[in-house]
Structures are given as structure tokens and as C-alpha cells.
């Protein structure tokens, strides 16, 4: 029921308004009660008659006041609601379809709030609900069965949801949509144009009423950077309208000490109406080579970050120029083709002396047909390769004529060589020039097409040996090695058994030569990448981006075939960094040709966005009005009866006294509100929580610890002071026995300095209770990721789920589980593997070692939290069982504090039999 924007939750009560006329009549019929007055001279009054009877009826305005009060009471209890929720289709099944592609990452928590609000409404209406993530539809590795559940079941599953890091067309098919049956659809759109949307709208509208929610803010993306000359060129896209504030593009990478920091940042702003802005950054090459990624500051989305790979880096290649400044014979110089091959993709240095080459700090040293070194050069070069350098050598007449590596294995040659060369296609030979054999799978060149016109006329032969096959990475069609390779320390030595110029083969002419150099990581790949150059390679993800733009290291994941990387990122190859031997390739969310456009909706589906609930109940205000009217009625009645003045004086006195008391109590409060100093905390047990960066969470944590402190005061001999919030960056932690650390996705990661302090705190016997507040929803909630980031540098011991015989289960109360507002697993330091069950005791001998951390997601603070008046701040569970759960949560808190304060005192009970035995003797 709704009248001019006001609805009623129980409109039937409004029938009570019909009784108003009756009340009017009754009030008029009954005269005001007489006032009794003791009066000794009543004898003189006896027999006096009243002349007028005007005051026997209540004045009309007083009647009106009373009727208003009664009407206000009736209306107040009828539950008036401002802007009542008149969403269409209030019953039946509800399908919530969530765009969880990367554009949703930047305001994911807002989306979850909106969904939670809608789930609450659906819970009230008892609608079956299912939640479908757009990215999961049509995937073979995700269960496709839709689960219809009650809304609260989905509510508990919400914190575990997170966006994916890619953006692909909608995969919803007509069959899938029809399989869902009829349901209303709530579509939480990310606002980015995507193929398949029109079909999807049609499917959903067939299923039921479709409502679209979409935040109005623009989605921002960044395209991969391109090297143009020495400059980095990158584009920032927006779905427009352009954000009002200026964006900042940051380039991150390790500084010389290896600590990641912002290497440079540049402001970028959109022109009015523009959806794309181009940025050109002039960066010194040393700095540029260190850039790991470029991102838009403070914009948490996978598309607002672009990873840098080899295409942005330039290897420094040192060429040993043995020819010198000799004129002429340019085309015969072995360096000519190398120069040509490397000029666009690497920095080259040409120097005649090997010692100077090494000083130039190159990644690769190329020796074209150099046979002999001085001993000092040989030692320096060996050391350089061992430390990770790549030495690339080419054969040639000099190498062939020397006896290098023939008698015994040379450290700077991959294989032993046979004396002299081999000429297979010359004028003086019988054979034809040989072609290259296709590359084997083990070869780094695998997948490169072998052109027919590459002909080898002369080569240096390798001495057959047991190692030869594994060191050969390319052969001629007759099976003789043409490229060999050997690892040396951290680096490697590669030998082309042909010369670097065209004298011995046509290889240097061919495109294959360039590709081979690239495969050997001598040169970086070009900015264009296609399936051909990646053919045959297998890439392993080393770092993966998540939907929030967080880059996290990966290990032990299956490789991805090279050509796949050329496709847009998707479920089978998430955005991130992929490595193949020395080469690193980035798969970015947005590719150079990606576009970012705003989603177009039909006019009938104009998307709305309401984060906060507009429905407002104002019943309490109406009831308060009724109370005020009642109080006014009392005053007026008193005034009518002539009793107002003396009463008023007393009331005034009472009010003044009350105000005074209030003021004095406030001043007392003001005193107790001052934060206790470290000195106080050191003298009285004080619980502390670490500020999470979210004021609301901190407030709950404070209230929670206050509630726990109260319960400790009531139930135990621990009498804590008022809890405090601490900042790990500045506050002295050593005086707090217990730190409660609620984690949000905004929790700042402690600086190295603070990490050191935390380590010291834990080493000195402190305990940190980490609370991800997500019911232990697995490792992928934002809070869990943040927990990993916070805890990683703390060198925590091995954790395990709290075993049933842990001392936490009996340090004060006997507990089986440790619920908070959620029920999830709780982790603590793992027991030593050799713990054995004590004689006659139901628990193992786990003496010594208070666990330094306890990790869980049970949102304990919310279960403990009390308001200032002592009532619980949040409901826990349902009814009696919920109260039981709250009680268990409080008991867990008490056990925890007892565990912190008494250590393993309770574990000493394992010795009780032994003590008794000794006493008995």
C-alpha cells in the first residue's frame, strides 16, 4: 500500500483511524477530572451554588490535540515507509546476473553491497535466488548447474566472489537461458560494451522482468605501451564521460636495491568528449628496462594495468669488432648481418677489445669468428658467462683453422670441434648445399618454419660424443649440428657452426636468422606478435593478474602453447607474465587494438544505480510525535486545571538538575575517552586492534574488544582497560598482549620498518589474531589476499587448522569450535609432528610454544561488539542458536586472552598423573 510516496508495512492497522470519532465523542462526554484541594475553610463554602458550568467540557483544541496524538500512534504502528520499495516482480524466482569481467573490479565492493541489499529484500519476500557470474557461463571447468537457494545462503557466499581479470564476449546461449526457466533477472552490469548483449537482453526479457543496475562512473583502461624510438607511448581509454579528476599513470619496477617502487608517474587528463588520450613518456633506457608494469594510480582493475615484457626492454648486445675501421668489404663483414638483425630490437655496442666489451655490461656478447683470447680475457669472459651472460659465437675461417676445442673441450665452446671445416656445396665439392632440418621439439627454435632457400655450404663439424645430441639445437638435413648450446654456470654458450656473413651459408640473409636470434633472447621480439613466431613454444605463467589488478606469483601451473598467447586473454590463459626460458612475455587485459566503449541499453531498460537504500521507515518518528503531543497534552491539562505553575517550577528544577547530571556525566565520559597512554596499557591489560584503514571496521573492532573486555571483567580475573586501536607504523606494540587485526581489501600493507616491529612483537610473545571476516571463504577473497600480503614478510611458522586438543580448546572454557559471527575454520601454529598422546590424557603433549598468530574469517569483533548501552551491536545467527553462537564467540575470546596471558599453563595438566604419583610416594 502506498500513498504519495509513503507506504505502510501493516496497512490494516490504519483501520484504527475509524475509531477516532468515537474517541472524540468519549473525550467530549467526560469532563475533566476535578482537582482535589484541602481547604480548612470549606465550612464557609458549604451551600454555595455554582452559577456557570462552562468548564465541564474539554476545550476543542485540547480534544484536537489528543485526537492527533491517537492518530499519530495508529499511523506510527502501521509502519509508514518513505519511498517504499516498489520494485517490479516482488515474488517468484530471482536470477542475479553479475558482470564479473575486469571493468567491474574497480567498484566490486559497491556491487556486492548492492547485491546484498537486493538479497535482503529477496529474503523478506522469500524468493528463491540464484547468482550467476557472467564469466562462469559456458565454461567447461565450472559447474554449470544453477542453484536456487534462499537469499541468505547466497549472502554468506557473497564475500567469496571476485571478478575475473579478462573480458570476453557473453557466452550465454539461448539454451542456457531457457534452461533457467522463468525468473526475474537483475543484471548488475559493468557498463562496458560487449558482444552478445543484445541477445542476452532478449533472453532475459523472455524469462521475466529484467532490471539493469549499472554504476554511472566511467571505466578506465590502459593499453600496452609501445616503444617508439626511445619513448614509451601508451593510451588511456575511458568509456566516458571522462572522470573529473586527473588520472595519474605510474610506472612500477624495482629500484637498484630490488625493492619495487614507482619509477615515474605522469598525469593524464581527458579532453572533453574524448574517450582516448595518448601519453608519451621519455624514459632513459636504464629506467625503462626496469619497468615491470604501468598502471593508473588508485584504480583497482585489471584493465587499468599493463604489464611490461621483453617488448619494452632492449637487450644490450656487445659485438666484438675484429675488423676495425677497415674500409670496404662492408658486405663481407660478419658484423653487417648481425647489425642489421639487431638494430631495431636491441642496443648494440661495438668494440674491438674483449675486456672493454665486458666492462660495458652487456646481456649478450657476440664473437664473430674469434678463435683466440688472452688468458686474462678468457678468464674474464668465463666469469661473465658463469654469472649469467649469453655468449654467442660464430664460426668462420679463423675458428676452422685454429685447433681450438679440438683436443679437449673448451669452456667457451659448446662442443668439441673436428679439425678443419666441411664444405658441402662449393665449386670444388661433389655434394649439394644442404638445407636445415626441421627443428625438433627440444629445440628453442621449435615451430619456426624453415625456408627452403636457406642453404649451408660450409660448416664446422662437431666431434661426436655422448653430449653432442643434447647440446645440438639445430641440425642440417643430414643430421650434422649447425647450432649447439651448452650451459655454463648461470649463463650459456651458443655456437653457430656457420659464419655470420654470407660466405658459408645464406642463413644470415633469411628472416629465420632474425627469428632464431629472438628465440635465443639475443634480441627482443618486435611489438607485433603473431602465432607464427610463437609457434611451437610453451609458456608458463609466472605471475597472474587478478580482477582487482593485483599481480601475484604463480608456481606449478600448466604451460600454455605459444600461439594461444596471441589471443585475447581468457579463462585458459589469464592475464599475467609468461616465461619461456629467458624470455618473458606479458599477456595484458587490453591489447593494442582493444577498444573500451560504453554499453548501450534500450531506452526501456535505462540502467539505474542506487547504492544506499532509499526506503526509509519513519514510524518511530511518528510515534515520537505522538509522545510529544501527549506531553503537550499533560502540560495543557495542568495549565487548564491551574496546577501548571508550581509543577512547572518543580519540572524546571528537575530539568536543571538533569542537565547538570548530564553535563557532569559527560565530563566524566570525556575523561574516560582520552586514549590511554602506553604507560597505562603497560600497567593494565589492554586489548588492542590494528587499524584496518576502514573507519567502519575499526569502529566495530573497537566495540568488539570493548564487549570482550566487559565479558572478561565479568567472568574472569582479567580486568582489562578500555581497548585501543594501534597503528603498527608508529605505536609501541610491546605493551599489548593481543592484537586483533581485521583485514579489508584496503588494509595498508606494513612498511618494512613496521614489519620488523611486528616480527619483534611476535618473537617477544605477542599474538596477532588475523580476521579476514569472510567466513574462511577460501583463499581468494580480497581480505585473504591482503592477509597473504601482510603476513608474507612475517616469517610465520607452519599453520594448521586448530587441532581438537589445542590448548585454546581448554584454556578457560572447554570449546569444540571457535565461531564468531561466521563459522569457519581457524588456523594456528601447527603442532610439532612428533607430538604424541600423553599417558591417560585425551590430548597430545603439545607443551611449549604459544601460537604467534591465529587466522580465521569468523568476524569475531562483530559477535563481541556492544553498543555504549551494553546491547549487542549486530545480530548473530538466528534466535536461540544465534545467541548460543554469540556466547561461544565470547568464550573463544576469553579462551584466547587466557591463552595469551597464561601460555600453556593448561597444557601442563598432562603432568598431573606424574605429579600425583610422585605425591603418593
Amino acid at each position: 500500500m502506498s500513498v504519495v510516496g509513503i507506504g505502510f508495512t501493516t496497512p490494516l492497522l490504519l483501520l484504527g483511524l475509524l475509531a477516532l470519532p468515537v474517541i472524540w465523542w468519549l473525550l467530549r462526554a467526560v469532563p475533566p477530572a476535578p482537582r482535589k484541594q484541602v481547604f480548612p475553610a470549606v465550612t464557609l463554602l458549604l451551600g454555595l451554588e455554582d452559577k456557570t458550568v462552562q468548564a465541564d467540557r474539554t476545550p476543542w483544541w485540547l480534544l484536537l490535540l489528543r485526537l492527533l496524538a491517537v492518530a499519530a500512534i495508529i499511523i506510527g504502528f502501521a509502519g509508514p515507509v518513505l519511498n517504499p520499495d516498489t520494485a517490479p516482480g516482488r515474488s517468484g524466482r530471482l536470477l542475479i546476473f553479475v558482470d564479473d569481467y575486469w571493468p567491474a573490479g574497480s567498484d566490486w565492493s559497491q556491487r556486492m553491497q548492492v547485491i546484498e541489499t537486493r538479497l535482503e529484500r529477496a529474503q523478506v519476500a522469500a524468493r528463491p535466488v540464484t547468482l550467476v557470474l557472467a564469466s562462469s557461463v559456458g565454461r567447461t571447468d565450472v559447474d554449470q548447474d544453477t542453484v536456487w537457494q534462499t537469499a541468505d545462503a547466497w549472502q554468506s557466499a557473497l564475500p567469496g566472489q571476485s571478478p575475473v581479470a579478462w573480458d570476453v564476449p557473453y557466452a550465454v546461449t539461448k539454451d542456457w537461458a531457457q534452461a533457467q526457466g522463468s525468473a526475474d533477472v537483475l543484471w548488475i552490469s559493468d557498463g562496458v560494451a560487449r558482444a552478445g548483449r543484445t541477445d542476452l537482453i532478449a533472453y532475459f526479457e523472455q524469462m521475466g522482468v529484467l532490471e539493469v543496475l549499472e554504476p554511472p562512473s566511467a571505466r578506465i583502461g590502459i593499453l600496452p605501451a609501445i616503444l617508439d624510438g626511445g619513448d614509451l607511448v601508451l593510451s588511456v581509454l575511458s568509456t566516458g564521460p571522462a572522470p573529473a579528476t586527473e588520472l595519474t599513470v605510474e610506472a612500477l619496477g624495482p629500484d637498484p636495491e630490488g625493492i619495487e617502487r614507482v619509477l615515474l608517474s605522469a598525469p593524464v587528463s581527458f579532453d572533453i568528449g574524448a574517450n582516448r588520450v595518448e601519453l608519451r613518456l621519455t624514459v632513459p633506457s636504464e629506467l625503462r628496462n626496469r619497468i615491470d608494469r604501468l598502471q593508473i594510480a588508485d584504480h583497482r582493475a585489471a584493465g587499468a594495468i599493463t604489464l611490461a615484457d621483453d617488448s619494452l626492454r632492449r637487450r644490450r648486445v656487445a659485438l666484438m669488432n675484429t675488423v676495425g675501421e677497415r674500409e670496404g668489404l662492408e658486405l663481407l663483414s660478419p658484423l653487417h648481418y648481425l647489425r642489421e638483425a639487431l638494430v631495431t630490437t636491441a642496443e648494440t655496442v661495438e668494440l674491438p677489445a674483449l675486456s672493454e666489451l665486458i666492462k660495458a655490461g652487456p646481456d649478450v656478447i657476440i664473437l664473430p669468428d674469434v678463435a683466440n683470447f688472452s688468458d686474462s680475457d678468457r678468464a674474464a669472459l668465463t666469469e661473465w658467462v658463469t654469472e649469467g651472460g649469453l655468449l654467442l659465437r660464430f664460426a668462420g675461417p679463423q675458428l676452422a683453422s685454429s685447433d681450438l676445442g679440438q683436443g679437449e673441450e673448451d669452456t667457451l665452446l659448446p662442443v668439441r670441434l673436428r679439425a678443419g671445416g666441411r664444405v658441402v656445396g662449393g665449386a670444388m665439392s661433389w655434394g649439394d648445399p644442404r638445407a636445415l632440418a626441421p627443428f625438433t621439439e627440444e629445440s628453442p627454435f621449435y615451430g619456426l618454419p624453415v625456408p627452403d632457400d636457406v642453404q649451408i655450404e660450409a660448416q664446422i663439424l662437431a666431434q661426436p660424443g655422448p653430449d653432442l645430441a643434447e647440446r645440438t639445437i639445430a641440425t642440417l638435413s643430414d643430421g650434422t649440428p649447425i647450432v649447439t648450446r651448452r650451459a655454463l654456470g648461470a649463463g650459456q654458450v651458443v655456437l653457430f657452426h656457420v659464419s655470420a656473413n654470407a660466405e658459408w651459408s645464406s642463413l644470415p640473409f633469411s628472416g629465420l636468422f632474425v627469428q632464431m636470434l629472438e628465440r635465443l633472447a639475443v634480441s627482443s621480439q618486435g611489438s607485433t606478435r603473431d602465432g607464427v613466431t610463437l609457434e611451437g613454444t610453451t609458456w608458463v605463467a609466472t605471475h597472474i593478474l587478478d580482477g582487482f589488478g593485483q599481480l601475484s606469483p604463480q608456481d606449478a601451473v600448466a604451460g600454455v602453447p605459444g600461439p594461444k598467447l596471441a589471443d585475447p586473454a581468457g579463462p585458459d590463459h589469464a592475464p599475467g607474465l609468461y616465461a619461456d626460458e629467458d624470455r618473458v612475455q606479458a599477456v595484458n587485459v587490453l591489447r593494442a587494438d582493444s577498444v573500451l566503449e560504453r554499453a548501450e541499453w534500450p531506452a526501456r531498460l535505462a540502467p539505474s544505480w542506487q547504492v544506499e537504500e532509499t526506503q526509509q521507515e519513519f514510524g518511530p518518528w511518528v510515534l515520537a510525535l505522538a509522545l510529544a503531543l501527549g506531553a503537550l497534552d499533560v502540560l495543557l491539562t495542568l495549565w487548564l486545571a491551574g496546577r501548571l505553575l508550581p509543577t512547572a517550577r518543580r519540572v524546571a528544577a528537575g530539568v536543571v538538575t538533569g542537565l547538570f547530571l548530564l553535563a557532569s556525566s559527560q565530563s566524566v565520559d570525556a575523561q574516560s575517552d582520552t586514549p590511554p597512554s602506553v604507560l597505562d596499557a603497560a600497567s593494565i591489560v589492554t586489548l588492542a586492534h590494528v587499524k584496518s584503514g576502514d573507519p567502519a571496521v575499526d569502529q566495530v573492532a573497537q566495540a568488539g574488544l570493548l564487549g570482550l573486555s566487559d565479558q572478561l571483567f565479568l567472568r574472569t580475573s582479567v580486568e582489562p582497560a578500555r581497548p585501543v586501536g594501534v597503528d603498527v607504523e608508529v605505536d609501541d606494540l610491546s605493551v599489548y598482549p593481543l592484537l586483533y587485526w581485521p583485514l579489508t581489501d584496503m588494509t595498508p600493507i606494513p612498511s618494512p620498518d613496521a614489519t620488523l616491529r611486528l616480527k619483534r612483537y611476535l618473537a617477544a610473545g605477542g599474538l596477532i589474531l588475523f580476521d579476514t571476516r569472510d567466513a574462511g571463504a577460501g583463499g581468494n577473497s580480497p581480505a585473504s589476499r591482503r592477509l597473504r600480503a601482510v603476513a608474507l614478510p612475517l616469517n610465520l611458522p607452519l599453520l594448521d587448522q586448530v587441532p581438537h586438543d589445542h590448548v585454546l580448546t581448554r584454556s578457560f572454557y572447554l570449546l569444540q569450535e571457535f565461531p564468531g559471527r561466521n563459522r569457519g575454520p581457524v588456523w594456528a601454529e601447527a603442532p610439532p609432528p612428533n607430538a604424541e598422546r600423553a599417558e591417560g590424557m585425551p590430548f597430545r603433549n603439545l607443551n611449549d610454544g604459544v601460537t604467534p598468530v591465529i587466522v580465521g574469517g569468523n568476524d569475531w569483533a562483530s559477535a563481541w561488539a556492544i553498543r555504549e548501552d551494553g546491547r549487542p551491536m549486530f545480530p548473530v545467527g538466528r534466535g536461540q542458536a544465534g545467541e548460543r553462537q554469540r556466547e561461544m564467540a565470547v568464550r573463544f575470546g576469553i579462551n584466547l586472552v587466557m591463552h595469551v596471558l597464561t601460555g600453556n599453563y593448561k597444557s601442563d595438566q598432562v603432568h598431573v598423573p606424574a605429579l600425583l604419583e610422585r605425591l603418593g610416594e
Partner: protein
Amino acid sequence: MNSDGAPIQLRSRAEALAARLPPLLVAAQHLAQSVELGEHGRRQSGQGEAFWQFRRAQPGDPSHRIDWRRSARSDRHYVQEKEWQAAHSVQIWVDPSASLAFTSNPKLPEKRAQAQIIALALASLLLSGGERVGLLGSALTPGRGQLTLSRMADQMLRTDAPLRDVFAVPRARQVVFSDFLGPLDSTRDFLHAAQGRGQRGVLFQVLDPMEEVFPFHGRVLFQDVGGVLRHDTREAGDLRDRYLDRLAQRKAELSEIAKRAGWRFHSYHTQDPASAALLWLWNAIGGPR
């Protein structure tokens, strides 16, 4: 229960009353001191302390009464006569009826309390002037000395004797404290009898200001202190003039009957200073011409 509880009850009541005694006495004496004592002699020779005159000794005068110092200055014998200081008896009565246990304002004393204070102050004043003071209607006959004052105070708090001429001492002065709001018959009878005995005195009316002003309006249910008499009115303000008329009539009637018996009448309101009332009483009683 009564047999067991009565003495205890009586005693506790007595103690509660006695607890009020000293403050009552102090207040009364304090009030009495505020009145300046004037000439007190009887202006004739008789029993007394103060010298009045010498007269020639007559036959029959005992020899020890001869004032030798005066006689030595002449040849005759002189006897010293003292001024007659034989005390008058004053009997006081304070109305014990319930209607005096009333005050309209917690800051004002009850009518009875005020009457008792004024009565005791008068007694104290009279006693220090050498008069004999007693309570009318009780066995406490007029006596002298501070002990009498204590006894009077004690007796005054517990007596509920009506206004009768029992124990009335002939030729004594009498002071009657009441609000005179009840029927006037007993007062009239008492005055009549007193006139017959040659007793003179004062009718002292004690009223609360509310009884003089009648500040009521609206619907009021009036009742007396005991809750026996009630009067219900719908518009009290309407009664005001007629009530004030009746009150004035009552005062006039009292004044009239007092005058007829040779008594004096005074009306006093509890918010007025008690010392003025005491001065008036002192002049009416203590200044016999």
C-alpha cells in the same frame, strides 16, 4: 495488640512531640526576647521586691519590718513598703482541632504551629514578667518559673481539650488561639460564661493566606483537613467573592461578640511576622491599665 502497643505507641508519640519541644521553646523564647519589657509594677504597695514608699510604723507592724536606717534619721519609726507585685494569672488555649493542621505553602508554618509558637512566646514573656501562666482546659493550673513553660509546651502538644471553662481560674486573663472557622456556638457560650466570672481576654484568630485570598478557579473538589466535609464546584473562581463576603462576616461577628464580653479580637495571617502579633498580644494582656 492495643494493650501491648499502646504504651509504646504513646511513648513514641510523646518522644516525637518532645523532640519538637526544644525548638518550639527556643522559637518562642526567641520571639519573646524581641519584645521590650516595659514597666511592670502594680503601682500600689503590697507584696513585692521593689521599694514603693516609707510609711510610719503603726501599731501591729512587726518590729522586723521597721526600716531602721530610715527611722534613725528621725524620731519616728518607718516601715518600708514594697510595690505590690502580686502576679496575674493568664490562661492560654490553642485550638486542637484538625483544621489548624494546614498550610497552603510548605514555606509557611502550619496554622497550629504558628499559634503554639506565639502562645508559648507570650507565656515566656509573661513568666519573665512574673505572671502566672497556665493552660486553659487542662489540669495545668497557672504557675511560675521556667519549669512552667516547659510543662506548658509539653502539655500543649498533647492536649486536645475543647474550649470549656473547666479549671478556669477566676479573675484570670484568657487568650484563645483558633481559626474560628467552625461553628461559633461554643465560642459564644464560653465568652458568655467568662463574662459572668469577670474574666477578660483575647480571641486570636490564625488564618492561612490562602483562606484570605481564595486563589482558585476551574473544577475543584474542596475538602477539609480530615476529609469529612466536601464541597464540589465546577468553577471555583466564581465562588471567590461570595466566600470572601462570608469570611468578612465571620470576622465581624467574632469582633462583635468579643466586644460584647469585654474581650478583644485580632486576626492574624501566618505569613505576617509573629513578633508584631506578640506585641499586640502583650499590649492586650500584659498592659492592664
